[in-house]
């Protein structure tokens, strides 16, 4: 199980160029490195005390892409995100963002560099208002003058938040809280957004809306690393995907190919 099963189809990490059909919609190779790679994670090992949670994870996110990370509970998806954004730095391996090594940087400098996230379980500031939460998202920004513009952008994506801006975040419904969490991540004007299970605990109608918004954010030009339990929906919006199994990457491919993959269908899409 935990062995690195050879990918049944050609892994995306192979040097061969990506098929053009899967090219993400926006500006490839804008300011990233090789092939427009904006985030490159190479063989990272992350621990919680003595618990070896990530046992050599490698992945890439390119300019303009939605990349999804799927896998069973406890596989290490959230830990991967925590490793990238400095909440739990890896002990081994390398993380390069826009050509800069950020492996051991603290969370605040990584946010400043342009990676923001909507963390697992949303983690809003429950006693702050919606607006104050959004302001916290812009905490590391130095360009105060663009604040209003970004706020308007968030309100345009989530009109509900504009109506609720003075309400305390802790009293919002689950779906509204998710909107605040995503909006808060966008307020950092990020160059890469990481979303950890944005659909968790939401009604199906809301889930669809959230995924539409994920797409919309991406179409506005921001690459997204998306962790999801809802593999079907995630593979539907993503360009590429990685399947995690107990601290390893078990499989990686274009999202469409993964959705058709038998193993994936059996394990994560609930099909027989």
């Amino acid at each position, binding site marked *: 199980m935990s062995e690195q099963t050879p990918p049944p189809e050609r892994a995306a990490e192979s040097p061969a160029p990506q098929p053009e059909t899967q090219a993400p919609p926006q500006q490839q190779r804008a300011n990233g490195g090789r092939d427009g790679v904006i985030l490159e994670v190479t063989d990272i090992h992350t621990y*919680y005390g003595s618990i070896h949670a990530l046992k050599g994870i490698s992945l890439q996110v390119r300019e303009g892409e939605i990349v999804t990370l799927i896998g069973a509970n406890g596989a290490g998806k959230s830990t991967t995100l*925590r490793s990238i*954004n*400095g*909440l*739990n*730095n890896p002990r081994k391996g390398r993380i390069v963002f826009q050509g800069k090594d950020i492996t051991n940087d*603290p*969370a*605040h400098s*990584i*946010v*400043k560099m342009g990676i*923001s*996230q909507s*963390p697992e379980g949303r*983690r*809003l*500031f*429950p*006693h*702050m208002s919606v607006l*104050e939460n959004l*302001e*916290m*998202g812009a*905490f*590391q920004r130095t360009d105060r003058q663009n604040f209003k513009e970004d706020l308007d952008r968030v309100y345009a994506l989530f009109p509900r938040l504009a109506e609720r801006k003075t309400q*305390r975040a*802790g009293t919002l419904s689950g779906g509204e809280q998710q909107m605040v969490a995503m909006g*808060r991540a966008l307020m*950092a004007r990020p160059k890469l957004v990481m979303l950890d299970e944005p659909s968790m605990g939401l009604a199906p109608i809301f889930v669809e809306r959230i995924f539409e918004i994920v797409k919309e954010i991406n179409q506005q030009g921001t690459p997204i690393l998306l962790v999801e339990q809802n593999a079907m929906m995630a593979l539907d919006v993503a360009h590429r995907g990685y399947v995690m199994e107990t601290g390893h990457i078990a499989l990686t491919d274009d999202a469409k190919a993964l959705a058709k993959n038998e193993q994936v269908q059996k394990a994560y899409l609930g099909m027989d």
Partner: protein
Amino acid sequence: MERVKGRSGMGAAGRGWNQLPERARTLIPATILILLAVLYPWYHENWLAEFTNVPVIINFPSVSTAVIVIVFVIMAVGLNIVVGYAGLLDLGYVAFYAVGAYTAGWLASGHFQQVSFHFGSAGISRDLNGIHVNVWIVLLAAGLLTALAGIIIGLPTLRLRGDYLAIVTLGFGEIVPVFVRNGDNLGGFNLTAGTFGINPIDSPGFGEGLNGAWGGLPVNFQQSFIREKLFFYAALALLLITLFCSVRLRESRLGRAWIAIREDETAAAAMGIPLMRTKTWAYALGAFFGGIAGAYYASFKSGAFPSEFYFNISVFLLCMVVLGGMGSVWGVVTAGSILAWLNVEGLANIGTYLKRQTPLDFEVAKYQFGIYGVIIVLMMLFRPTGLIPERRRKLEMEEGVQDESVYGASR
């Protein structure tokens, strides 16, 4: 439920009051309080001082008592930055008081007899040996040095949380007085004068140059006929500056970061708030005001003595913050004034009164810490958010916060 009753009980006047803009609602009482405070020496002298047999409290606090009360309130407001704003339990705040007091001892007294250094000293003979820096400058230096001490204490301890942090700060609070008591022979060098303490310490003043300017600035407070009043007004000015900074700080970006860390440390880190730096700022700024207050008090008493820097002062200051309402500046000022007054003379007076009026032979002042303990317990039972609760703090206490540590992200 109690709260709701109180509100409606205020009736029409209360409703009219609530319709005033927020700014007016804070500015009006603040102005009245400041006026009452500024005029205190005047109406104390002309009116209050005549009463020498007031029920229960016997007499109204003298101006000199008021100086001590103000000094303690400044320290409590400083501690409130650490405990109330940033949510870091500090059981060793007395260390900052000590550093402040000894800075005054080092920079404004004849302690270092081996040198003679004068810098703008007011009303101090040039022939005197020792370091004599102008006390106003000393106050600032004490604040800065104490802030540095705050950072030194803060850096190694801020990775700890809750109880562990409290225990380490407690340790620092104990180390400082022990060091001070034994600092009279550091490899032959007398830094602290050991158990004797440093005295006399210079007092503030404006020197010959400004003497009489703007309606009579005094050369030196200590040598003035109205010594108490001068110390009172300067203390009041320091308190107002402290309050202003404290209120501004709470509304600042840093203040927001403290609230965020209090509410959810992991989320705060994920928003890009540098945890270590933000917490260290709380220690440094809290310490800064403690240092100024300590130096001023040392100058007022004209001495820094190791016997004053015990653990009970830390607890006493913490009581002021908790009773007033953590994070609530006005609450802390209120509770701080009451407790400091009780400590200086209130309890003793009440004891005397009880002895006079009742057959009880009961030294109230002897049981002071027992009495504070009872007050705290009663408050925790009936009004755990403090006398004047701070809005956010109150919500946090009633609804709880995310209290899970960040894995390896405490920097």
